């Protein structure tokens, strides 16, 4: 006697499955239980970012290295201060990019 093959077993299992359950008011009951969705407030975050940028700008604008670097960069002269400013801005941009990419994963 041969045992049933895999296809027979699969067919039997599918045959024994009752399929989808009729709604019978289930959807309405669940809809009544749904809590309100929380809105993600974006304005506090934007305000925080703007305040951080403004504070950075104010505190760095009086630093000689920053002023020299910024001036050299705008004039196209790649001096050491200009390179340092460029590296600092690039690093901060990369950090911000990494944060933006990682943020949805943590929601």
């Amino acid at each position: 006697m041969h045992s049933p093959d895999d296809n027979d077993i699969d067919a039997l299992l599918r045959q024994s499955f009752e399929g989808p359950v009729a709604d019978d008011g289930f959807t309405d009951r669940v809809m009544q239980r749904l809590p309100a969705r929380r809105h993600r407030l974006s304005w506090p975050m934007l305000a925080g970012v703007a305040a951080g940028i403004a504070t950075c700008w104010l505190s760095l604008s009086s630093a000689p290295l920053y002023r020299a670097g910024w001036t050299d960069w705008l004039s196209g002269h790649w001096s050491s201060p200009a390179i340092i400013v460029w590296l600092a801005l690039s690093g901060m941009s990369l950090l911000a990019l990494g944060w933006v990419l990682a943020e949805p994963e943590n929601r």
Partner: protein
Amino acid sequence: MPLVADTPAQEQVDHALVTRVLLGNDPRAFEQLLRRHQGMVRAQLRRLTQGDEAAADDLAQETFVLAWRKLGQFRGEARFSTWLYRIAYSCFLQAYRRPAWSGRDTQEDTFEHHRAPDSSIDLQLDLARAMRKLSSAEQAVLLHGVQLGLSHEETAYVLGMPLGTVKTHATRGKAKLKTWLAAWQGTGNRE
């Protein structure tokens, strides 16, 4: 019993409804998603709870409330139905691990030998008994991989198991069923 497999068009509808919920905070779009998927999620949970309809419906409610809360985490990497099955299975596991669950009657019965088969109903009863004799992992893999029509990869995603483990459980489970149901061979199991 035809399986309710999502077609690409149905998947697109699901994704559009999810987008409507997320962008417009539209409960009616979620209601449509709920109506489309509640039947199969409840069927999945009824199987997992060994036919306990009340417990299955409680878990299904919990599943859809969680889906509503976590909808922003659905990224379309899996089908929406598969994502729901995963949440439902997770809810089931959490309930199953509670002490209150262990005292439930899971309709355990003795299953040692099969008498000469009488009809397809007897075959189904023997199959149900044989399924209950499988390990819980083998039952879960066969439920999702065969009865719900998921691929091995989707089954692994829903159950949180490595792909190789899913394949092993599927092979072992079917081998056990074949052995236990061997007496039915050639007696109308293709009805």
